[in-house]
Structures are given as structure tokens and as C-alpha cells.
């Protein structure tokens, strides 16, 4: 039985360092821009388009500008957002692997293979990037130092074994837990009634 306190809020999950997060986002932007540029250079364009250029004065509607002006733009907040996005995507990637038949059969996932591989897609950066190696290293250190090798999520547990392989297991969901708790309370109440002789 898990305790309600163990239903850990996701905000306690791993966050990469601000420096790493900034570097990953920068690489993503560079990579995507280069990709688009090379794509642009290699393509035949629709030359008719000249006659139908957008009117720059109508480029944005007011709702867009409201969002732009109301969004906080401080550097700290931007970096915090980068850290959150990267941590979130790793969190969901691990959750996905936990539900795989392979994990349910007790399969182990080599850390240095699945994290760089999976996060390459999740973060839109080349798999061979050193930054993904650093991300894996930071995650590994966080798991070992802050959670003694085992992190418990709302419905899953990730552990790192001695061979640097991830072991992912489902545990009771919050719904399962609440239902179990209700049953337990019902059993207590019934026991109390029997003890007190009250029907």
C-alpha cells in the first residue's frame, strides 16, 4: 500500500541544470533553423506568391499581441520554462516505457541507450549530441543522489540497477489507492461497530 504522501507531485521530478537546458534549447533552435534553411535552399518555390504577400500591418491579431505582452519575459522565468519542458518530456517518456509489455515482463532499459535515443526525438536534437549524454548523466546523478536510485511517481517507479539499466514498474494508481483507502476505512468502521456492539 502506498501512502498518500507518496503520490509525488511532478514538480519534484528531475529538472536539468539551467545551463544545460539553455544549451539544449539553443541547439534545438539552431538545428531546426538549419534544417528549414537547407530545405528552403533545395526547393522550387511558388513564384506566383509575390502577388499575395501578407500585409505586415495585419501580421498579428490582437489576441496574439495580448499573449505576447502578458507573458513574463524575465530570463530566470524563461530558463525555468526550458528546464520544465525538458523534465516533463523525460517524465512522459519514462511513463510510456513503464507501460510497455517489455517493462511489465521485467525487462531492463540500458540507461545510456534509451535516454539519449528517446530524448533525441523528445527534444528535437541530434542523437549524437554531447548534450544528450550530459542530460543522461545529470538524470543519473539526480536519481542516485536525491532518490538513492529509486524515484516513485504517481503510478510508477523507476530504479537504476548496478548495470546502469532502468527498471520501470507500475504501482497502484491514485484511483486504485483512493479506492483501497475507502475499502480500508470501511473495514475499520465495520470492525469498530463489531467491537462496540453497535449495529
Amino acid at each position, binding site marked *: 500500500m502506498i501512502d498518500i504522501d507518496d503520490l509525488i*507531485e511532478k514538480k519534484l521530478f528531475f529538472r536539468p541544470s539551467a545551463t544545460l537546458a539553455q544549451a*539544449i*534549447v539553443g541547439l*534545438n*533552435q539552431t*538545428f*531546426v*533553423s538549419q*534544417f*528549414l534553411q537547407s*530545405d*528552403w535552399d533545395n*526547393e*522550387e*518555390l*511558388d*513564384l*506566383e*506568391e*509575390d502577388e*499575395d*504577400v*501578407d*500585409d505586415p500591418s*495585419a*501580421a*498579428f*491579431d490582437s489576441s*496574439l499581441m495580448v*499573449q*505576447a505582452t502578458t*507573458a*513574463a*519575459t524575465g530570463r530566470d522565468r*524563461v530558463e525555468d520554462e526550458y528546464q520544465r519542458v*525538458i523534465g*516533463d*518530456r523525460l*517524465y*512522459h*517518456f519514462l*511513463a*510510456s*516505457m513503464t*507501460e*510497455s*509489455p*517489455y517493462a511489465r515482463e521485467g*525487462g531492463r532499459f540500458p540507461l545510456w541507450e534509451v535516454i539519449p*535515443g*528517446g530524448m*533525441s*526525438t*523528445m*527534444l*528535437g536534437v541530434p*542523437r549524437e549530441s554531447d548534450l544528450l549524454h550530459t542530460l543522461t548523466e545529470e538524470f543519473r546523478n539526480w536519481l542516485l543522489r536525491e532518490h538513492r536510485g529509486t524515484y516513485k511517481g*504517481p*503510478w510508477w517507479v523507476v530504479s537504476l540497477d548496478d548495470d546502469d539499466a532502468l527498471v520501470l514498474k507500475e504501482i497502484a*494508481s491514485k484511483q486504485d489507492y483512493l479506492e483501497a483507502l475507502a475499502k480500508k476505512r470501511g473495514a475499520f468502521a465495520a470492525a469498530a461497530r463489531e467491537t462496540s456492539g453497535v449495529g
Partner: protein
Amino acid sequence: MPPVRILHASDLHIAVKAKLTSVFDQISAGMYFHALRPRALASTYDPAILLRLADLIYHDYNGRYINQAAHRLDAVLLTGDLATTGKHHDLEAAVKFIDGPVHPYLPTQTPDYVPTLASSRTPVWLLPGNHDRLRSAKLTGYSPGGKIFDTLFASHWSSPITEYDPILNLSGLSVAVIGADFNLEHKRQREGRWWNKYAQGRVHQSVLDELELATQRIQAKHAASSQDELAIIWAIHFPPKSPAVATSMKLIDDEHLVEAGNRCGISAILAGHTHEPVRYQTPGMKFEVFCAGTATQDFAPRGHYFHILSLSLDAGRNLEIDWENYRFDATNSRFMLV
């Protein structure tokens, strides 16, 4: 009696590489002109949420998460904007999502860890949205009329009309779904000169005629061979008479579509495009419209949604459509019923 259950999602906006910052982030960070660069305008997807959507569809074959009554899904319908653009590389990424290949021990991912539905045992039906038809243009960046979608999705989509197979059949009810493409075929078909003007659709008379003919053909064939009640659903990217759509994104001549739907006695239109989950019926409309939100676009201020339609017959053999909305819950890393 078990209902016919269709998972309806839309506006995935898959791209060859997910951008970690959206155009909105770039504006808010003060990089106005960078954001204005034509080719940076198209927003992209969150691969992690796409992966969790694939997981849910794969695992729910046995009613594990979303089918609490253990009624399996009968079909998954994606009403357009599978890709961020209609360019080859973005559409290829969307094809991977539908057809794989599959990772040796992760059934919802490809060997290079792209989310995929290829292992799902539920039929997947799809159609193009305006983003899937965007092709390169010189100064505005993108222009409508791209045709690559039809080639890459040839095994799933036959333009401009697709009668999805199989016709779903449960408890005396048959449900036939037909998809239609009302995207702009050329930039000159748009109205106005607004920003985002190519996000409009148009009810092309030739496509509407084909849609009506296909509907009548299915109805006639069914009447000759079955005692079941028949529900016809049209799947279209652009919601007609939508209360939630901006003028720059409207479906031009949508009154013709509504009139045709009334004439054909359809039960519903399933659509996407607005990124807002809404169920509505306007005056003069004899059917309902079910509009999916965006399931996986990165920038989603209203959240990430899909819905499940459950179709069944009541005691008087009248069609009932139950609508369940699911929203992605980041803490649980799952889509949850709302």
C-alpha cells in the same frame, strides 16, 4: 448493449523535428522579427504528449484506461493537421506515426523513438487539414494546394472523399464514416487578406457532390442488405458554422455543407481546426458537430484534448451520441476524463 466507440482526435501538428520554443515564446522573449520569419510561423507538436496518446490507443484495446465499461474502441479518427506542413519531411514524420516501423520492444515507438500507432489493433482513419496541404512559397512562406499528403497517405486516404472501412456494426446499429477534403486547392480561393488567411477552407461543389453521392450509395446498399439502423457521420477538418472560429480560418460556403448534411440525414460532423473541443448545433442544422481540440500541438493554451463518441440506440431505436472529453494531465502523464 455495447455502443460503437470512436476516438476522435485532431490537429496533431507532427513535424520532422519538434521545436522547443513556439512562435509565441519567441515573441514573448522579444524576438519579434525572428518569429515573423515566414518559415518559423508554423507551430509544431509535443512529442511526449503524442507518445502518451499512442500509448493510450495501443493499450486501450482491452479497455484499460478510457473504456471503464470494457468496451473497446472501434476506430480512431484523426480529422486533419496531422503534420505541421505539407512538406515531405513533416508528412513523412506523420506517416511514421501512423504506419511505423515499430521498435523491437516498445510497441508505441519506432526504432528511432518516434511515437507510432502501427501496433494498434484499432483501425485508424484520417484526412488532410490545411496544414497538411501547405507547400513552400516565396515570400509568405507557405501557400495552400500541396498534394504530397495524397501520395504518402495513399493507403489511408483517397482524395477528395474516403469511405472508411469497416462500417462499424454493433447491437443493431451500423455506423458509416466518410471523410471529405475541403481544403483550399489554390491560394486564390481564399477570401480577404488577413494574416493566417490560408487557414480557410472552402466547400467545393464538386467535392460536396461526391460526398452526397457516396452517402446515398452507402444508404441504398445498407437498406438492401441490413435491418440495422444506419448512422452516417461526415469527417471534415473545418467545422461548419463554428461558434469558435476566426474569420481568417472559416469554412467558406459552409451553408452548402449544412444543407447537404440535412438533405442526406447525417447524424453528425466530426471536425477539428479550431483547437477548441466543442459540441454544437446551430439553427437550421439537423445534426450535431463535434469539434476536437488539439491533441498534441505544443502551444495549447486551452489544453490537449481528444474525445470519444459512443453511439447507441435507445429503447425506441433512436440514435444516442454520448460525448466524453479527455484532457492531458501532466502530473499523471495520462489523458484523463474531464
